[in-house]
């Protein structure tokens, strides 16, 4: 995993619970071009395994992630 890359789209899912963060992520990705990066913020306690599972199945890699004060941030590149 590298440094946080440049962000094209941001998605705030803080306060939302399963399945909404993943549903909103999937919808946001549909409007993006290949190789663009989305920064998703989440507070759902299941977000880390959920984003990893979503990424594995959709082929859109998580290129960077961090957690600060219970807010998880994921940088995901559209494949």
């Amino acid at each position, binding site marked *: 995993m590298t440094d946080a890359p440049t962000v094209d789209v941001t998605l705030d899912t803080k306060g939302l619970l*399963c*399945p909404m963060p993943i*549903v909103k992520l*999937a919808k946001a990705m549909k409007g993006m071009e290949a190789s663009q990066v989305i920064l998703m913020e989440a507070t759902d306690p299941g977000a880390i395994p959920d984003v990893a599972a*979503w990424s594995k*199945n*959709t082929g859109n890699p998580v290129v960077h992630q961090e957690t600060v004060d219970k807010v998880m941030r994921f940088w995901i590149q559209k494949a």
Partner: protein
Amino acid sequence: MSKIVYVHTGGVNNPERSATPIYLATTAAAMDVEVGIYFTVNGPTLLKKGVPESLIVPKFDGQGAPLRRFIDQALDMGVKFYVCQPSLDLHGLTKDDLIDEVEMIGGAAFNDMALEADQVICF
């Protein structure tokens, strides 16, 4: 594309069992999985016109949401809803009594769907 079929047997008498298969299906659709929910046994009672709006999916704090919200999320993500005739007969329902987004299939079509799917998950 991977395929999952959810089988939903819960009905209006068990509101706490009503939404889970629907939101898991929504999540699967968000993961680029082709998803169908087969409502059988008591499942079709959840799809009777008016029920999704009035059935509240309970939450510990009393702030539950109507089932319609979960159904709309699923439909919006492309989840397909299926019922079969015998389970409608069980409850005196016809296709016209159900919300418009439901498709009728028979037992053979369901079994074919199950054979074609990567996973079948039953509730």
